C-alpha cells in the first residue's frame, strides 16, 4: 500500500471521514446499479414486489408498464447515487486545500470510501431486501443466500475499510506542499 501520501499524524485525523463515506456510499451504489441492475440484470428496484412486506403492487420487469415503474425507481436510485458522489467530492474539496494529489493516495480516504460502500450494502440489504423486501439481490430459490452474501460483503467492506484507514497515518490536509 502506498504510504507516500501520508504525513505525520496531525491535528485533523477525522477530516476525511465524512467525504470518504459519502463518496463510498455513492460509488457503492454505482457498483450495484451498473453491475447488478444493468450488466447482470439480476434485479431492479421493484422486481420482488409480489413478495414484499409492505403491500406494493407487483411490477414485473417483463411487462412494459412494470419495467417503466422499475425504470422510474432505478432513476431515483441513480439520482441518489449521483448526489452522494457529487456531495462527497464537494465535501472533500472543502476540506482539502493543499496536497490534493496526495489525498488520493491516502489510505485514510480509500479506507473510508470502502467503509462507505460497506454501509451502502448494509443499509440497502437490511432495508430493501430484508425489511421492505421490494427486491432481492438475485431472486429465486436461493435468494436468502444471495441477500446474506450481500450483507456479509457489506460488513467485510465496512470492517476492511475501517481497518485500512486506521492503519494509514492521518492525512492532514493543512500540511501540503
Amino acid at each position, binding site marked *: 500500500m502506498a504510504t507516500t501520501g501520508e504525513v505525520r499524524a496531525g491535528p485533523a485525523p477525522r477530516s476525511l471521514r465524512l467525504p470518504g463515506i459519502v463518496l463510498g456510499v455513492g460509488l457503492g451504489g*454505482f457498483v450495484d*446499479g*451498473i453491475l447488478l441492475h*444493468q*450488466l447482470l440484470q439480476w434485479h431492479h428496484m421493484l422486481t420482488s414486489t409480489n413478495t414484499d412486506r409492505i403491500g406494493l403492487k407487483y411490477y414485473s420487469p417483463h411487462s412494459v408498464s412494470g419495467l*417503466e415503474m422499475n*425504470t422510474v425507481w432505478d*432513476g431515483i436510485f*441513480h*439520482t441518489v447515487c*449521483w*448526489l452522494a*458522489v*457529487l456531495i462527497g*467530492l*464537494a465535501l*472533500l*474539496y472543502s476540506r482539502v*486545500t*493543499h496536497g*490534493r*494529489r496526495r489525498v*488520493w493516495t491516502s489510505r485514510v480516504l480509500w479506507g473510508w470510501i470502502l467503509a462507505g460502500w460497506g454501509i451502502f450494502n448494509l443499509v440497502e440489504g437490511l432495508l430493501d431486501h430484508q425489511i421492505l423486501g421490494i427486491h432481492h439481490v438475485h431472486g429465486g430459490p436461493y435468494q436468502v443466500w444471495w441477500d446474506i452474501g450481500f450483507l456479509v460483503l457489506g460488513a467485510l467492506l465496512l470492517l476492511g475499510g475501517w481497518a485500512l484507514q486506521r492503519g494509514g497515518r492521518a492525512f492532514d490536509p493543512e500540511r*501540503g*506542499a
Partner: protein
Amino acid sequence: MGGHEHLMHEHRTGGAHPLPGGPLPTVLAVALLAVLAAGYLLLVRRAARRHPGRTWSRWRTASFLTGCALAAGALLPPLGAFAHGDFRGHMAQHLLIGMYAPLALVLGAPVTLLLRTLPPARARRLTGLLHSRPLRFLAHPVTALLLSTGSLAVLYGTPLYDVTAAHPALHWLVHTHFLLSGCLFAWVVAGPDPAPARPGVPARLVLLGVAVALHATFSQLLYGGFLIGVHAPVDQVRGGAQLMYYGGDIAELLLAGALVATWRPARGPHRRTAARLSPTESLSSP
C-alpha cells in the same frame, strides 16, 4: 455477431457502402487523427529539447494518444459499419466520440503543451486568444453544456437523426460536433489545461450534476420512445438508450474523477494571485 450482421444488411440499401459516404471519409478522418497524434508526439519531443530539466508527463502523452485511438476505433469498420445500420452501434460510437475520447484528449493537456513549445510571441498570442471575448463566451459553462448535452435533444428529438442517416456529409458534421463539443465540456469541467473564467470546483460539480441529470433524462425518454426523432427497431432504441444511460454514467464518473484529480487549490501560500488563466508552468520557465 451474426444477428447484428443480419440487421446491418437489412438497413443497407442498394449495395451502399457500410461506412457513411463510402470508405474515403473514414480513411481521411482516421488519417487526421493519426496526424494529430503524431503532432502531439513531435511537440512532446520539442518540449523535452527546450526544457531538458522538465519532463512532460507520460500519463498525459498516453492519455492524448488513447483519445486519438478511441476516436479512430469508433470510426473504423468493426464499429463504424455496425453503427451505420444499428442504433446500438450508433450510440456506442457516439459515447466514444462524444465522451470518452474527449476526456482522454483533454487530460493530455494539449494547450499546455502548445504554450510550452510555441515561440514566445505565438504563445502570447495563444494566451490572448484564450482570454478573448468569443472564447470566453464559448467556454462559458452554460454554452459548453448547451453545445454538448443540449445538442442531444436536437439530434434525437427532431428528425435530424433520420436525416443524418441519409446524408453522409451531415453525418460527419454531427460526428465532428460531438467530438468538439465533448472536448469543450470536458475542458471546462476538468483538465490540466488553462481555461478562461473556469468556475470554481463547487460550481463545476453543480454543472456536472446538471449534465448528468439531462443525459440520464434524455436516455430515459429515448428508452420510453418519447424522443420522436429516432426511427429504428424498438429493441435497438432500448439497447442504445441503456448504453447511453450506463455508458454515460461511467464517462461522467471518470470526468468527475478528472475534475478532482486536476483541481487547483483555491487558497494557500502557493497560489499565484493573478493566475486566473494560470498560464501554467509555461512561458516564464527557465
